[in-house]
């Protein structure tokens, strides 16, 4: 069942997800834990924060700038909007002051992402090439 989740990002848009370097395995692939929805204050499922390259570019920002904002403890994983949609995810913009391009990723049915669904995203995510 489809929930009323917005879906407004161009299919070819690169989607970035911040991840702790300690959650990257020695082979360079991320652990599934990197792809959890943030819990809301009441404990309910919220969404997974992401950044969209198209909006970052309009603001003159790069993935290197994004990584700098979050610090050396973090790295940036790159995905593609179409690939995420194929995994049942929906994407929308949710602007924050801290850095341009902030957005949200959530299951199309509004449900909390299961471990298996996290794993499927982990398998298609890679560290942004600019950071290698």
């Amino acid at each position: 069942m489809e929930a009323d989740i917005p879906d407004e990002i161009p299919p070819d848009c690169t989607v970035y997800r911040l991840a702790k370097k300690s959650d990257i395995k020695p082979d360079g692939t991320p652990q599934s834990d990197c792809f959890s929805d943030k819990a809301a204050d009441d404990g309910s499922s919220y969404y997974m924060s992401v950044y969209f390259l198209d909006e970052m570019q309009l603001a003159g920002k790069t993935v290197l700038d994004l990584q700098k904002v979050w610090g050396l403890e973090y790295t940036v994983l790159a995905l593609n909007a179409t690939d995420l949609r194929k995994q049942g995810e929906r994407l929308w913009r949710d602007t924050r002051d801290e850095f341009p391009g902030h957005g949200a990723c959530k299951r199309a049915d509004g449900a909390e992402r299961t471990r298996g669904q996290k794993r499927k995203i982990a398998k298609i995510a890679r560290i942004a090439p600019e950071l290698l």
Partner: protein
Amino acid sequence: MTLLAESERIAPNSTDAAIASANGSGTLTKQIRISRPGPDASVSTLLNRGQRPPAWVEELVLEEIPRKDDYGLIGLDTLARFAQICSTLPHHTPKPYYGVGDDATIGAEWDLGRFHVEIQVGNNPAMNSIVFEIDGGEPEELPLEGNVRLLAALMSRILRDS
């Protein structure tokens, strides 16, 4: 500093553990008993007499996972349940990659040759699950509750074959 001592009936095959976690007002130390019998009957018969849990379980649960829990999301029950599950694994199970998700879950995963195994234990038990994958294929997901024995058996078989 607040010190809480939680007394529970002593169960066979139980391990006492003190879990310290930071909170806003200082250090909260809670004495828990990681019991194997666990909260559900299915766990109570998982450990054979004399079976030892993997050596990494205690440090992982008492120190490493709390250190990764930046926002203090993980409940004590969740941590204890995770410890119980890991304690049912064969003694020679290697230490997993582990993490704490923003959704208040603890995850552990193993890359074991052709096999990939993950477990998740969260504050919401409905999200507890096991993921198996062979040769990089489609991940198969099962609820953790009711399948802990299967997890231990599969891990044993995988470790024997890999």
